[in-house]
């Protein structure tokens, strides 16, 4: 049994050639392994099966706290890749910050104080519909540089996290992680199958900073369960990332009107909102926790669109095909106002040469320029905050709503 600790000792990989230290480090960053053999990996006890590139370096072990399973994979590098298959879903953004801190604490205890850490790469995306985040760090200790790579993804309500504490092997590590996630199955756990799912990537200044997965499931008596998980890793400075993880669950009529909803949000892993919305005699009641305080309020308003309702309304708008036509949508957006219906205006601007539609969405002070397909799905979007530009691109889609 072992906890989530480093299994290897550390040293900085600075060789002894005539090249300068920065040149040698750059060379090491570019190093990759040759082709690796794909092998099956299975744990009956932990109920998962997948494939790995390379071979098991140590026997599979259940983590001491029962939260998951530890797997060490030899990919032919001095230090192996460590992976953890968790029994639950992690806050993807916060997990990468937490595990980065953990790794640096362990470095410090073995190598001495870390002099500097620098985010070298953030990636957000999807592997076969599973939202994925990656962070790489360059760190300095004892006057030399080291390289640290993390990847995390969620597959069907569980998360898998891998790290490689070795300079270079970036593509090799990415390929291994993709192999694991793409093949991950839970043989004894029935998997809920959505009738619609999509993943979008959020970019800031053309760099990936976030990923959002939306999934719609059939529910009892013809109702629909809607889930959306949003994860953002925003660069605060070169050494600091801010993590935001949000989960929304809505129950909706098949027509797209909200029945009730839950909104849970954490910042840097700390819970900042846990709110429920239910119908009340006069409209709606919202209750729970907000900013670490109890929160309860009521507001009027008979009909609120669900995520499904938003999509259906936009589809109707674009299929009508009238440039300049607009609709108003009332939604529950707790970030804007937890105790009110937020009204957005959706305006059809016109059809594009590629067959999609330009659609502008105004929500309070926000103006979001979107590209929508003929089914009402947003395939791209862009919004500006002063000089700051954010974009969204749909990177995965399966099914229809």
């Amino acid at each position: 049994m072992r906890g989530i600790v480093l299994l290897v000792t550390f040293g900085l990989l600075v060789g002894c050639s005539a090249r300068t230290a920065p040149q040698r480090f750059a060379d090491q960053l570019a190093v990759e392994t040759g082709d690796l053999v794909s092998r099956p990996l299975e744990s009956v006890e932990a109920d998962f099966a997948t494939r790995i590139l390379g071979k098991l370096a140590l026997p599979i072990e259940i983590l001491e706290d029962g939260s998951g399973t530890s797997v060490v994979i030899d990919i032919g590098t001095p230090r192996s890749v460590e992976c953890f298959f968790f029994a639950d879903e992690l806050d993807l953004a916060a997990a990468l910050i937490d595990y980065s801190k953990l790794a640096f604490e362990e470095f410090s205890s073995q190598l001495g104080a870390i002099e500097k850490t620098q985010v070298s790469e953030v990636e957000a995306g999807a592997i076969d519909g599973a939202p994925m985040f990656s962070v790489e760090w360059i760190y300095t200790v004892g006057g030399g540089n080291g390289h640290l790579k993390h990847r995390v993804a969620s597959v069907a309500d569980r998360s898998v996290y891998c790290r490689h504490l070795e300079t270079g092997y970036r593509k090799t590590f990415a390929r291994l992680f993709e192999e694991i996630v793409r093949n991950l199955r839970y043989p004894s756990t029935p998997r809920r199958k959505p009738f619609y799912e999509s993943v979008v990537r959020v970019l800031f200044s053309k760099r990936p900073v976030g990923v959002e997965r939306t999934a719609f499931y059939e529910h009892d008596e013809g109702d629909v369960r809607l889930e959306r998980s949003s994860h953002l890793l925003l660069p605060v400075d070169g050494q600091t990332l801010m993590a935001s993880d949000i989960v929304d669950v809505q129950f909706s009529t098949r027509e797209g009107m909200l029945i009730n909803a839950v909104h849970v949000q954490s910042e840097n892993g700390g819970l900042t909102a846990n709110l429920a919305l239910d119908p009340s005699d006069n409209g709606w009641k919202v209750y729970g926790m907000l900013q670490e305080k109890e929160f309860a309020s009521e507001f009027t308003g008979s009909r609120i669109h669900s995520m499904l309702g938003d999509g259906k309304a936009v589809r109707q708008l674009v299929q009508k095909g009238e440039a300049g036509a607009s609709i108003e949508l009332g939604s529950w957006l707790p970030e804007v106002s937890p105790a009110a219906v937020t009204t957005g205006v959706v305006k059809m601007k016109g059809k594009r040469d590629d067959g999609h539609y330009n659609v502008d969405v105004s929500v309070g002070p926000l103006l979001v320029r979107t590209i929508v397909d003929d089914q009402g799905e947003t395939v791209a979007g862009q919004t500006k905050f002063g000089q700051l530009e954010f974009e969204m691109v749909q990177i995965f889609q399966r099914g229809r709503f």
Partner: protein
Amino acid sequence: MPSWAVRVAAALAITVATATLAWSTEGVGLYLHVLPFSVQADVSLHGASHLRLVLYAQDPTYLASTILGWDVGIVREDRLEVEIGRYPMRDVAPSQIHRAASFLVDFDEEPVVTVARQAAKDLGARPSREALTGFVADYITDKSLGRGNDVASQVARHRSGDCTEHAVLLAALARSFGLPSKVVHGTVIGVPSQSGAGAYGHAWTEIFDDGRWHLADAALRGPTPVFYIPSFEYVDEGPGYGIAHLERMIRGSISKIEVTGARRAVP
């Protein structure tokens, strides 16, 4: 609704400074949201009491309306010319919102009550605004950007944060001692002695005392000369306070600053 856009808006609203992003401790405190900044070659900022500026802004007319008490010169399509002192004196009487507990400035919550009790013990029953400012600067021991835009009770509990957390806790403590207060966002121009001047997004507190408003900045202390350009103050301190101010944040945002002149106050 484009939830991704709402989410990044919320994240921006709570950090004020998420992006171009750098911060520096430069020996004086927290700086956020570094702006393009230039000084004309023949202008020296050292010892200056007033600066002549060209402010490039999303909405210069709106920005001009927020800079009350200063000589606003020309407003053009993309910029505003203005002469500023260290801080604009605004002759607006405090209202109930500046005195009452709110969701954001929640001095009635137990964590803030406890901190106020400690402040009274350390500083006396009627602490000065300067003493309260120093108290908050010392109380927040973890000077970091790791928190969002916390409410005062969270700041009291975690003792961590950047300029917004300093500003909110100071506003709460001031109100708990009967001093009207508000949280203000804007831009500061710092003139560090060695590394040259810079402009940064920032948040601070105003406290009403002795019949007028005073600047109180618990996050940015030290001898470095600093000029403040307020863009907006929180007028909605309710639970949607972050995004509620996004419009002001955007309309009041400055994208670039040029210093075209500087003068010293006549003794």
